[in-house]
């Protein structure tokens, strides 16, 4: 039921976006000031503030809030589990989602050490006929090369949400998906060991 309504929503979104998509084809370099670009800029500003002003558990809690506010986590979790999603119970899905969010929040909190003057500059937004927008951006560092980051943004029904992050061509969702799939395959094709493993990691 939930899935069906999401699909319907995506179809609607696709229809609604068909016209802008055609316009986008005519003008390939869109001005980067649409709602999708603003979403990325807001999220990036919030994360930079967190990295500047907080550490440890406080930062982790802040990052968790950013994840829940800006990312479509259920969508990403489902995408990361791929076909294994269908073999899970609602209770397992809830636990899986919780464990993944904890893992990601912790990973991001550790990932940024001290703030080193990084900025995120949005360069271009392309609207896709399937309802997703892809926001190209560069993470500029004070030392070293800028890093290319692409954000996939969709309308989740609760407003625009980020559904994937690609860093230098490596998609977070795709990598997790491959990672999880392999783990599941090596543990008897069951999702339960993966959920337990993720839960165990989040308490470590």
């Amino acid at each position: 039921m939930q899935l069906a309504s999401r699909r319907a929503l995506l179809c609607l979104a696709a229809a609604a976006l068909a016209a802008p998509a055609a316009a986008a084809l005519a003008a390939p370099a869109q001005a980067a000031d649409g709602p999708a670009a603003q979403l990325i800029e807001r999220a990036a500003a919030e994360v930079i503030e967190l990295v500047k002003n907080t550490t440890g558990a406080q930062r982790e809690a802040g990052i968790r809030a950013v994840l829940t506010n800006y990312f479509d986590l259920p969508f990403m979790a489902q995408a990361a589990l791929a076909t294994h999603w269908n073999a899970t119970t609602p209770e397992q899905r809830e636990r899986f989602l919780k464990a993944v969010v904890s893992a990601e929040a912790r990973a991001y909190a550790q990932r940024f050490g001290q703030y080193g003057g990084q900025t995120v500059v949005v360069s271009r937004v392309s609207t896709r006929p399937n309802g997703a927008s892809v926001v190209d951006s560069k993470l500029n560092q004070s030392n070293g090369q800028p890093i290319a980051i692409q954000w996939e943004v969709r309308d989740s029904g609760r407003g625009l949400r980020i559904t994937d992050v690609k860093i230098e061509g490596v998609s977070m969702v795709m990598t997790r998906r491959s990672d999880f799939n392999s783990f599941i395959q090596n543990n008897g094709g069951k999702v339960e060991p993966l959920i337990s493993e993720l839960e165990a990691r989040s308490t470590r």
Partner: protein
Amino acid sequence: MVEAVRKVTAGARQSAMALVAAAALLGGCAVRDTGASEPWDPLEGANRFIFSINRAVDTIAIRPVAVLYRDWMPAPAQRGLHNLLENLGEPVTAINEVAQGDPSRAATTIARFLVNSTLGLAGLFDVASAIGLSKTKESAGNTVGYYAGVEPENGGFYMVLPLAGPSNARDAAGLMADYAVDPFRILTYALNVDWLLYSGPRWGATVLDTRTRTLYALDDLERNSVDYYAALRSAYTQQRAEIIRQKREKTNPRAELERRDNLALIR
């Protein structure tokens, strides 16, 4: 009836696999042309074995040295060594750019090489970038991927090379081709330059430089994956594909997005 159909498809799949195995040896092949599928890894058992040995060697010998180098070697010295190695690689890049049908880009690369080898003090300083000769890096793996008429995610079977790490049929073959055509290798071989004077130091410095540059990303990937082998396999495949895709779709960066519209990610 159903059973018969299944047999036929299984047979077809088998012969397809045989074809694919043959094609993979030539560099690229069409096995499962959706980027959403897992990288093709028929040698997974052997690969995991080599991967675990690589990891042990890395933990004991390579990573600690790379960490020391990163933390204690002054940044300008690290940059200098990196520039030096990149400069030694420019001729191979130029050869590949010619092979990719872009001789004007190859000329720029040669100009870079000449400028950096002289004004840049044997490549220690990247003077060429400062005067507007931008840097590129090409390998034979890129060249094969550029011409292979398959999704760039598909580089033949995945393989883990001893010490060198993740690769696939396309990139491993490319590595050998690059080694074969490298003018420096040919020259030092012809002149009987001692291994300890050129090949050894260059190889060692390349390992150190590469490992130092991948410390952050690999540590992160290892810490945040449940199956490091699979995560690295996926990340490697995606990153190589991205590079080749950019090369192919120079005029059309949207092709990547269009491909992604067709992935199973979209419901």
